[in-house]
């Protein structure tokens, strides 16, 4: 015998709830005067190295904390703390390939935000899933490293379309790779005409000041228009 069924229409994107959570979190952070930067990239593009350089340039100007997301290790949070001395915690995603707004909120609950201007979230190394899940951050930045190729924006369009800044890292190896910076800019522009492209070398620190200046300015603006 066939079981009769009743159909209830839902018609709702799986990402909709997360987007609501993210908007709510963003609003709360705005009220608290805390700026959250979501930093994304493939594994090994240089997120942690870039962060350490950036924090060193900004730590006298801004009160900074870092949340390191990783599937299960503690290495990055320890690296940040040892190199910069700032408040840094590790978030374990328990096998998840991204962080969503709820997980980000739980992470923030573990930080003392009372005297913090800027929180940087180092997202899970992956160009697909983090792009689909709004974390509630004020801005998204991503790092593309030279060995990954200048055509990445074409292969991962969503990631590039959600980012306000694209940092091109490892410029020291440009001579060894067939990576065309102008082509890369054009590819980013095609996906996201508003995005800023900032070439850096996190290893030597070259160009990191441009990124740090952008961030400082943006944090100030954001805190002012409260």
């Amino acid at each position, binding site marked *: 015998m066939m*079981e*009769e*069924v*009743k*159909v*209830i*229409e*839902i*018609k*709702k*994107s*799986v*990402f909709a*709830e*997360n987007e609501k959570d993210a908007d709510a979190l963003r609003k709360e952070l705005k009220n608290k005067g805390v700026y959250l930067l979501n930093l994304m990239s493939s594994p090994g593009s240089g997120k942690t190295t870039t962060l350490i350089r950036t924090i060193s340039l900004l730590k006298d100007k801004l009160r900074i904390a870092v949340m390191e997301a990783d599937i299960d290790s503690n290495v990055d949070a320890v690296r940040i703390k040892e190199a910069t001395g700032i408040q840094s915690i590790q978030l374990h995603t328990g*096998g*998840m*390939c*991204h962080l969503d707004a709820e997980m980000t909120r739980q992470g923030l609950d573990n930080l003392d935000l009372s005297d913090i201007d800027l929180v940087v979230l180092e997202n899970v190394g992956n160009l*697909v*899933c983090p792009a*689909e899940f709004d974390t509630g951050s004020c801005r998204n930045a991503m790092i593309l490293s030279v060995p990954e190729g200048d055509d990445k924006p*074409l292969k991962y369009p969503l990631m590039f379309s959600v980012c306000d800044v694209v940092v091109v890292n490892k410029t020291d190896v440009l001579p060894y790779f067939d990576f065309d910076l102008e082509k890369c800019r054009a590819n980013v522009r*095609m996906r996201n005409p508003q995005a800023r492209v900032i070439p850096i070398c996190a290893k030597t620190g070259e160009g990191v000041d441009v990124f740090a200046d952008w961030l400082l300015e943006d944090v100030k603006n954001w805190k002012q228009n409260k």
Partner: protein
Amino acid sequence: MHELGIVFYIIRDVKAAAEENHVERVSGVVMNIGEVSTIVPEYLTDCWRWAADKETMLKGCELKINIVPAVTFCGDCKKEYETVRYGRTCPYCNSEHTWLLRGNEVEIKEIEVPNT
């Protein structure tokens, strides 16, 4: 594993919808999955089986997938074409000034509940 994460969001939404509708058991969930949404349907149904059976309300509940074909629109010649076949570049006028109209959905279309 991207699909497992997605399954947890589906479960959360389905449970909320069931509650809203005062339903105690859900026997089917129908999804609209876009052709270029990056979701692999077989992985999604595998993950679903594993996770849904852990939920009393969703034991044995079947996940049905409608694939939504991806269609791109060309801003220059105003024509539509198959995304998967032609990609970013318009096959009619060679323009790159194109955008996806549909095919990116990860959407719960409806739920089915036993009619008692």
